[in-house]
């Protein structure tokens, strides 16, 4: 079953450092999927050498960061064996509220806070309905998917918001030491989430709930509060993606994030997250998002017909899940 008390895998009595590292790599749950990512990158580079240029890597990592940040939020919800279908709409809605705030002449910092507040607040509403009212996460967040997207239409009537404060653009378009800022934000968010989930009491309880909710509750832990907050985190991370997209494209698009919930969930699952809850890692989610982003880019570079790309994408998601399944069966 899921690792209720997950202990960092320790290399057991290995003689040399080299075999030590090797053992560590193979034992890691993410290793199969990481090797798959490397394999995919090698194949793409062999067919289309432009893939490995600095310019392309720069842009692909930036593309990946958008989905990856939101995926880390959904991942946290999935750890509690929940699901969040509203992230795509929350990406859009928080981008719009951030854009509206800027159109009103509020500076970039209040606007970003308003955007993040929107995501966090709506996420908490999801969480409240799931944990305190006791409605299935699927239905709550499906309803919220429509409500949030519908709110965008009410606010904008379908028109994009274009009066964006130029000072915010750096978040989506700037870079630091040659690394795009969205990628740096992704890395920072990942480190925080990794630390939060692995090393804090709250984070360990998130895993515990997914492992066995009833047992966790009986051991005196406030399960409802944790579940409620987890949806808030998901909304918050979705809003960060939404705000970055506004800064990236210089406008708040009404269709922003449409359908992205599926990409986010797929990134988590490809990265080895169990939909039953309790198992998965931040690193895995990042690799999952990277696989999808790399393939999307590679299909164009390899000049694959547009009619084939969507089907191939789906095939590779299933293939990745199969590889992961076989690998983890062997380990256990």
């Amino acid at each position: 079953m899921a690792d209720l008390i997950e202990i960092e895998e320790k290399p057991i009595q290995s003689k040399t450092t080299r075999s030590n590292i090797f053992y560590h790599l193979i034992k890691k749950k993410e290793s199969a999927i990481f090797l798959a990512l490397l394999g995919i990158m090698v194949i793409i580079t062999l067919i289309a050498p432009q893939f490995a240029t600095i310019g392309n890597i720069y842009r692909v990592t930036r593309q990946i960061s958008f989905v990856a940040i939101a995926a880390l939020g959904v991942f946290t919800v999935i750890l509690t064996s929940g699901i969040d279908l509203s992230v795509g709409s929350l990406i859009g809605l928080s981008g719009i509220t951030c854009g509206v705030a800027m159109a009103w002449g509020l500076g970039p910092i209040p606007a970003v806070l308003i955007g993040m507040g929107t995501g966090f607040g709506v996420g908490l509403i999801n969480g409240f309905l799931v944990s305190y009212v006791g409605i299935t996460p699927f239905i709550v967040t499906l309803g919220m998917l429509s409500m949030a997207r519908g709110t965008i239409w009410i606010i904008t009537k379908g028109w994009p918001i274009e009066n964006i404060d130029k000072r915010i653009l750096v978040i989506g378009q700037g870079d630091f030491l040659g690394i795009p800022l969205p990628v740096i934000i992704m890395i920072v968010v990942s480190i925080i989430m990794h630390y939060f989930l692995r090393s804090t009491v709250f984070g360990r309880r998130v895993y515990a709930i997914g492992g066995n909710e009833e047992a966790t509750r009986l051991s005196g832990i406030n399960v409802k509060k944790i579940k409620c907050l987890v949806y808030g985190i998901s909304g918050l991370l979705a809003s960060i993606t939404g705000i970055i997209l506004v800064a990236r494209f210089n406008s708040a698009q009404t269709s922003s994030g449409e359908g992205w919930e599926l990409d986010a969930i797929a990134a988590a699952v490809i990265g080895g997250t169990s939909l039953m809850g309790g198992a998965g890692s931040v690193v895995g989610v990042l690799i999952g998002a990277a696989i999808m982003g790399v393939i999307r880019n590679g299909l164009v570079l390899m000049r694959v017909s547009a009619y084939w790309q969507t089907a191939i994408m789906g095939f590779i998601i299933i293939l990745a899940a199969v590889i992961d399944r076989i690998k983890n069966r062997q380990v256990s």
Partner: protein
Amino acid sequence: MKNKKLFTVLVLALAAVCLSTPLFAGGAQEAGDSRPTFVMVPKLVHPFYEPCIEGFKDAGLKYGVNIEVESPPKFDIALQVKVIEDLIARGVDGIAISAVDNKGLVAVVNEAIAAGITVICFDADAPATNRACYIGTVNEAAGYTAGEYMFNLMGNKGNVAILQGGLAPNLNARQDGFRAAAAKSGVKIVAFEDFQADFAMGVNKTEALLETYPDLNAIFGVSAYGAPTAATVLKEQGKSGKVVIGGFDDLAETITGINDGSVQFCLVQKAYKMGWLSVEKLLDLRAGRMVPDIIDTGIIIVTKDNVDSYMGQVKSEVQ
């Protein structure tokens, strides 16, 4: 006990929402009104329909017709059929539909006609139904015009990539027209990419296209986001103006691009004219006058020269 109370509160809240729904519905018809009622049924709520609705309302005002708009909440044939069924039940006089689907509307359109309602299509045709006529862009012809204009700008040589948002039939028809024009010129279509009407994906695809084809001379956007997504990337890479960018529809970003020189032209459907003519043709049909089967409203090419005046140009064509 506590749950029971909560339940009661929720039921009351639900009832309140249901009862207040009519408050949100605008433009209800006044009783005893002898004027005909024409209803526009778009595919979904979308900015594209705003000039259509404006033209529809303006013509309604001029000819003394009650005008209403009933949009299905999203692009879904079942929802559009339901909207039309509701209109049949209400007994309106004329319906102008932007068809979500051709075959899927046959039964309900025939039912409406049997109930004495005049039905026409605008923007998107459903020729399989018995609708009286279609008013809108003939997409293949529009794509051909677009191609001719773009290839002329390119000096009839070089490489072009096509960006299309979704594989819908109307977009495919435009693409066919564009390809037909390319076949007659010296321009080569090197790539065709579908970005599924997602702005972020359009940018990603453009970045990959420029990486794959360093000798690309032009990018054509078959649907609304095509041109602005391409322009976003070119501006960022400092190649603005070096690659010809053109495409359908006048999104605000596209117009911004035309003004700053990153987009060379866009093609605008005469949406206002579609709405206006819908009222005129519905009136003609109800008066028993003959109406052509297909009325091509044509497109207008927008460049830096007419970017400020084209809207007025379209309006003055019909008013």
